């Protein structure tokens, strides 16, 4: 990768807006995301965080605005100008999407190894031994014992399912990963383990990530940058520690001051 390419953003959002009929989902979101950057999107439920994530990951078509993505060959493509199969290919290979509910991101009736291997097969891998070895390697990296490779995620705990979902997403070495409340619904101790894992993997692989969370502690631990959303609009953005330690907008001040001390 040349340095010149490093200077170009991986993803550019310009004026992203989504109306559901007359109801606003998200209005005029614009930002740039660079390789290796982790951006948190925070705000209360209904603030438009998830709509924004669905827009950015091309699961929902924007009512206005555009998303530019720098492809592996260095060219920049407008997501909604490319063909549907191309978008889906991108989603399967270059991107990852971690759902809050692992059931939505996993095939619950398929073995753990199969769940991880499936993504590899989607990019053309056919060698069974290599696929199984890669799956075993990734299970190890997310701290799932190899002895559980043939079990289905139905037999897994919530924390293990979430880690399996992460392995499934990362096995194709994506450049961008979307996460929707990745630690939501997990016990605090399980959360800590998952956060540490995510933090380590994202920095080792230099993956760019967009993490939606309502938990400011999660945002602080995982992200370099943060966007605060309210009523469908981005009301404040900047460095994570800057926005959390010196919030300017009334709503952000309210959010920060509402954290209960541990």
């Amino acid at each position, binding site marked *: 990768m040349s340095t010149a390419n490093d200077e170009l953003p991986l993803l550019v959002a310009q004026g992203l807006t989504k109306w559901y009929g007359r109801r606003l989902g998200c209005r005029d979101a614009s930002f740039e995301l*660079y390789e290796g*950057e982790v951006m948190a999107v925070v705000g209360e439920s209904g603030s438009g965080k998830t709509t924004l994530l669905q827009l950015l990951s091309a699961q929902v078509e924007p009512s206005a605005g555009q998303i530019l993505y720098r492809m592996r060959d260095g060219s920049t493509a407008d997501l909604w100008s490319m063909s549907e199969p191309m978008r889906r290919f991108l989603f399967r290979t270059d991107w990852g999407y971690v759902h809050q509910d692992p059931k939505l991101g996993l095939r619950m009736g398929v073995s753990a190894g199969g769940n991880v291997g499936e993504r590899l097969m989607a990019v053309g891998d056919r060698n069974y031994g290599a696929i199984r070895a890669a799956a075993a390697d990734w299970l190890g990296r997310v701290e799932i014992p190899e002895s559980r490779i043939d079990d289905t995620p139905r037999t897994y705990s919530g924390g293990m399912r979430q880690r399996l979902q992460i392995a499934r997403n990362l096995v194709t070495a994506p450049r961008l990963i979307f996460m929707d409340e990745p630690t939501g619904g997990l016990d605090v101790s399980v959360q*800590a*383990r998952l*956060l*540490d894992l995510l*933090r380590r993997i994202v*920095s080792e692989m230099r993956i760019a990530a967009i993490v939606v969370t309502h938990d400011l502690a999660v945002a602080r*631990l995982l992200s*370099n*940058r943060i966007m605060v959303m309210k009523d469908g609009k981005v009301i404040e953005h*900047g*460095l994570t*520690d*800057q926005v959390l*330690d*010196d919030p*300017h*907008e*009334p709503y952000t*001040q*309210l959010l920060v*001051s509402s954290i209960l001390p541990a």
Partner: protein
Amino acid sequence: MAALELSAVTKIFTMHLQGGLRLPVLRGVSFGVEPGQCIALTGPSGAGKSSILKLIYGNYRCDQGQILVHQGDEIVDIAGASPRQILRVRQRALGYVTQFLRAVPRVSALDIVAEPLVMKSVPRETALARAAAMLRRFNVPERLWSLPPATFSGGEQQRINLARGLLPEHPILLLDEPTASLDANNRAVVVDVVRERKRQGAAIVAIVHDDDVRAAIADIAVDVTHFASAA
């Protein structure tokens, strides 16, 4: 030429939850730090000493004025820099050591200390070896290195934080009470390392309450009371 230069820096907090109360903290902060120089910020608590360090680090947003960081031919104004620029300056040039360690669950003391070097693309093995040497220097017992510091004593956590902050040899160092709650032995280690960094050409801004330590490391004292906004 100064490595770090503040001119007419002003900071006002607006507290929206208190009816938009405006809290002026600092006004017209101006000083420069040369490579190899250590400036001590002095003044009573509440005068805004820590706020100045936070402004330089980009942790607080600067309302007015300039905070120029010189890196070779490149000059970055932290007051107007993008998040990406600030992150890059922090990674390459700015070290910030506070009294408090922000420990990440499950990450070992050794890895916490080595992390800033790894971020600077130092090979992992080298980073770990240098982190180990630094921990040894700060008298952190080897049996603690592989443990996450969340359960360590206050003094141990602080020494790990110091080792982490002082290891990367940044050209600019910000020290916020680096010796608070340390014993005489470890205070001497801090003085030793800070002097070493000065000889290597680091520009340092420090808040030190201990008079002996301050006398041992600082070249110039800047009284922050001058900059405190009249309330």
